[in-house]
C-alpha cells in the first residue's frame, strides 16, 4: 500500500427519478447517493459498510461509471473518468473490475470457465486459442482452481467456487482496482473465510486496490485498511479500520457495532446494547438536518435543523454535531458519552473528562 491516490471521488451524487401516473412524469427523486467524498490509495482496501439501501452498490457502480452519476467527479489515476468518451472509457475500465454478491447470476450459464475467464483476455490482451487457455489456467490456479475445471459450466460448481471463477475473470485484465460488492455475503461462513483469504492474497501479490462493499462490519474490519460508513446516501464516518471498529466517532457506527452479535454467549449477554428505534427512513425524503436524527440516541435540537458537515480528523472524518456544536468530542470516540436514551441527565453532563 502506498499513499499515492488511485481513486478520488468528490461530491458524488446519484439520484434516480421516480416516475408515476399515466404520462410517467417524474414525481420524486431517490437520493441513493447524495454527496459522497473519499479516496482510495494504490494497493489499499477501503471498506464501505452500511445497511440495505444506504447507497453502497450505487456508489460502487458510479465509481466504475457503470451508471452515470448525477453530480460530482471521479478521478481514476488522475483522469476524470466522467469526461472520457466510450473508447477511452473502455480502455480505462480494463483497469477497474467488479465482482458481485451473487456468483450464480454473474456468470453466463452457457459459457465454460475457459470462455468466461478467457473473454477479457481476448478483449484486453488479444489472447486466443492455446495461449488464452494457458493464461486462463494460470488465473484458475491463482484462485485455487485447477486446469481440469477449464471445460466445465457454472452449474457444476459450488457458490464459493463460482465466486473464485468471478475473481479469476476480474483479474484477467490485470486491474489496479477491484470493486467487490458483497462478495462473500451469499457464502457460508467457512467458505466466506476461504474467499476473504484469497482476496487478501491477491491483493498482496498484485498490489490491487479494493473497494470492499459489505453490510457486515466484522468482515469489513478484517479485510480493510480504512472503513467508510454510509447512511442514507452519505458517508457519516471514515477512518482507519481499527479506529472505526474500536473507537467509533459517529453514533450510527456505534449502533451498528452494538448490533452485531458477538459469537460468545458470555460476552454477548453481558454487553451494553443500543437498540435503535425504527427503520432506516426512505431515501425519497431523507430527514432534514442530520439524516440520522430520527434514530439517534444522542440527537440534540440542532440535529433536526442543521445538516452536519464532514469534519476532517486524524485518519478520516466524521459528520456529526457531537464533534462541533454538541458536547465537543473533537474527534474522540462517541463511546465516551452515554446515549441520551440511557442517560437521565442531558448529554452534555455525561462527557467524561
Amino acid at each position: 500500500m502506498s499513499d499515492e491516490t488511485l481513486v478520488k471521488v468528490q461530491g458524488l451524487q446519484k439520484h434516480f427519478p421516480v416516475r408515476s401516473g399515466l404520462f410517467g412524469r417524474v414525481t420524486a427523486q431517490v437520493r441513493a447517493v447524495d454527496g459522497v467524498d473519499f479516496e482510495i490509495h494504490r494497493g489499499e482496501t477501503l471498506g464501505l459498510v452500511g445497511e440495505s439501501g444506504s447507497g453502497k452498490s450505487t456508489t460502487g457502480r458510479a465509481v466504475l461509471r457503470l451508471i452515470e452519476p448525477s453530480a460530482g467527479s471521479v478521478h481514476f489515476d488522475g483522469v476524470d473518468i466522467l469526461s472520457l468518451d466510450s473508447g477511452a472509457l473502455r480502455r480505462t475500465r480494463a483497469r477497474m473490475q467488479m465482482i458481485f454478491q451473487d456468483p450464480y447470476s454473474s456468470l453466463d450459464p452457457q459459457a465454460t470457465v475457459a470462455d468466461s475467464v478467457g473473454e477479457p483476455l481476448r478483449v484486453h490482451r488479444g489472447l486466443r486459442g492455446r495461449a488464452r487457455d494457458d493464461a486462463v489456467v494460470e488465473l484458475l490456479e491463482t484462485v485455487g482452481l485447477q486446469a481440469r475445471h477449464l471445460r466445465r459450466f457454472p452449474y457444476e460448481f459450488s457458490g464459493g467456487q463460482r465466486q473464485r471463477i468471478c475473481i479469476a475473470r476480474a483479474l484477467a485484465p490485470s486491474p489496479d482496482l477491484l470493486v467487490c460488492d458483497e462478495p462473500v455475503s451469499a457464502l457460508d461462513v467457512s467458505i466466506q473465510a476461504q474467499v476473504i483469504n484469497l482476496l487478501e492474497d491477491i491483493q498482496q501479490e498484485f498490489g490491487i486496490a479494493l473497494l470492499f462493499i459489505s453490510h457486515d462490519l466484522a468482515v469489513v474490519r478484517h479485510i480493510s485498511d480504512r472503513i467508510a460508513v454510509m447512511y442514507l446516501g452519505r458517508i457519516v464516518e471514515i477512518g482507519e479500520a481499527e479506529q472505526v471498529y474500536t473507537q467509533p466517532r459517529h453514533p450510527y457506527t456505534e449502533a451498528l457495532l452494538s448490533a452485531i452479535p458477538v459469537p460468545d454467549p458470555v460476552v454477548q449477554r453481558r454487553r451494553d446494547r443500543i437498540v435503535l428505534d425504527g427503520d432506516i427512513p426512505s431515501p425519497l425524503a431523507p430527514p432534514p438536518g442530520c439524516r440520522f436524527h430520527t434514530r439517534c440516541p444522542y440527537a440534540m435540537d440542532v440535529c433536526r435543523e442543521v445538516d452536519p458537515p464532514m469534519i476532517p480528523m486524524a485518519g478520516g472524518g466524521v459528520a456529526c454535531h457531537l464533534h462541533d456544536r454538541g458536547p465537543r468530542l473533537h474527534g474522540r470516540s462517541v463511546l465516551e458519552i452515554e446515549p441520551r436514551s440511557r442517560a437521565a441527565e442531558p448529554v452534555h453532563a455525561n462527557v467524561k473528562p
Partner: protein
Amino acid sequence: MTTLIVNEEVMDEVRADPLLSVENFAVEFATGHGWSRVVDDVSFSVRAGETMGLVGESGSGKSVTAMSIMRLIPTPPGRIAAGRILFEGQDLLALDEPQMRKVRGNHIAMIFQEPLTALNPAFTIGDQLVEAIRAHRKVTRKQAGDRAAELLDLVGIPGARQRLRDYPHRFSGGMLQRAMIAGALACSPKLLIADEPTTALDVTVQAQILTLLRGLQQEFNMAMLFISHDLGVVADICDRVAVMYAGQIVESATVYELFERPLHPYTEGLLLAMPQHGKPTDRLVPIPGVVPEAASVADRCRFETRCRYAADECRAAPVPLTSYGPRATRCVRSKDLVLGGTS
C-alpha cells in the same frame, strides 16, 4: 484422555419430559437417480419455555427438519423415511391433515426468513391477522380485529390500529417480520419455530427483532426452535444448540458449553472461521473444501473429507451420535481431542 463432567442439575432437566422430541428422524427427496436422504438420523428435543438453536450451513437440512415438524414437506417429491416427532407425547407423524391443522397455529406456529412470501399481497395485514385468529378461535370479526390490533401493538408496531389497513408492500422488512410474529402469537402457541427470522434483515433491525422475541418468550413462557446459520445470533438467543452438517446433527450442548468447548471438529471449525475470531490482522481460518455429496461419504464420518483431525478410524464406518450426559457428539475421536471455542 479428558473426562467429560456431567452436571447433575442439567441432567435432571434432560430427564424431564420435553415438549417436542424428534427421534431418529429422516427425510428423503426423489431425485433423477433414486431417493436422496437430506435429513438423516436427527434427534433432539425442546423443553417448555426454552430456546433450542438449530445451526448449520445452507443445505444442511435445517429448514427441512423444521418444515417436517409442521408437516409442511411437499410429498411427493419428499417422504418421511424414518423416525418419530413427539409433541407433548403425541406422534405428529400419525395425525391426519385435519388433526394436524389444529396443532399448527393452536400449539405450534412458525415464522420464516422471507416474511413477504408468507403473506398475500392482495389482502391487508389486518385481514390476514383476522383470518389467522378466526381460523382457531370462535370470535366475531370485530373481536378478531381488536385482537389483531392488540397483537400488532404487542410486537411494537406504532399506530397499530391504523396499520391494520395497510397492504404488505407498505411494510418494511422489519415490520413484516413483526407482523408475522403477531400472527404466530395469535393463538398463544407453546412452541414457535423461527426459521432464520432475521437473516434477511439489517443488523440494527435484527437486534430489535431478537429483543422482541426474547421479551415475548419470557412473557408467554413459549418454547422456541430457533434456526440460524449465524453463530453470533445463536450465542445471543439460544439456551441449547444442535449443530447440523450434511443432514445430520453432529453435536448438541448448552450454548455456554458449545462455545466454550465444542466437542465436534465441525463446530470448532465454524467458530474459528468467524472474522471476529483472533486478532484482526490474523489470517482467517477456513474449513477447507466443500460439503461433499452425501453418497460419497456414506461409509464414514461425513465430515472426514474436511476434518483436520481425520484418522483411519474415521473412515471405518458411519459415526453414530453418542451422548455424554447432557451433551452429544458424532465424532469417534471426541474423547482424545481437546477442541477450542470462543468463550
